């Protein structure tokens, strides 16, 4: 049997993910997290806060909630249920920072927590920074920047 024959055989015998169910769960949980965010933002805006600050505080509030849930061991259970629904919102980013911080605490506060904090979330920051520079260059050259 060749490797490509075997690859086909593996496909035949490997059950696929339950895509419809996963998508429904991701939709409901992801949507719900955004609704919580919107509710927080509405309260802040109603309190007279400017929009940028309200957005930032909303993100911070969601981040803190996610970190508390991660520390309680709840977020991993939500993630198991919701998949991308809890990974794609900013709460997933907070979970991705907190989970390794907790896991690697035993390796010390510097090389454990300090170094491992970004093993999952780090790429998001790296590529976010790269993309922002690309956007910045285009905006500076063509976009009406000074």
């Amino acid at each position, binding site marked *: 049997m060749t490797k490509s024959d075997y690859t086909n055989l593996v496909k035949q015998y490997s059950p696929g993910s339950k895509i419809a169910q996963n998508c429904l769960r991701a939709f409901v949980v992801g949507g719900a997290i*955004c*609704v919580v965010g919107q509710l927080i933002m509405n309260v802040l805006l109603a309190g007279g806060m400017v929009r940028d600050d309200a957005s930032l505080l909303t993100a911070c509030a969601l981040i803190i909630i996610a970190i508390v849930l991660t520390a309680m061991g709840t977020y991993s259970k939500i993630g198991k249920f919701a998949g*991308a629904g809890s990974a794609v919102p900013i709460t997933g980013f907070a979970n991705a920072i907190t989970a390794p911080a907790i896991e690697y605490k035993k390796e010390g506060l510097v090389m454990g927590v300090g170094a491992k904090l970004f093993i999952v979330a780090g790429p998001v920051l790296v590529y976010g920074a790269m993309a922002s520079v690309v956007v910045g260059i285009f905006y500076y050259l063509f976009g009406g920047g000074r």
Partner: protein
Amino acid sequence: MTILWAFIIGGLICVAGQLLIDLTQLTPARILVIFVVAGCLLSGMGLYQWLVDLAGAGALVPLPGFGHVLAQGVKKAIDERGWIGIFTGGFAAMAGGVTVAIVFGYIAALVTKPSGSAAM
């Protein structure tokens, strides 16, 4: 009304992520990277703001919204400081969220011990 749109748009962005997970062999980390970069580039081209206006948190809370914040930050910094803003705008815009995540994540690590509850 924004709340309904927040639910729908936020949910749909997550469904897009779920489809990428289930239909491709992309790892979750790669998908998050793709989302942030996509959000940043779309916003840079001016193609994301309408979604924020429509869905509020539904467009801001998922990671493409994070990318949008980066793009808007870099534009604002360039408007204020010229070319230096290319390098300061992105990180300045995400400083608040990331710092809160670091500080509270760190505190969580200090007060928590791995329980293994996820192992059952």
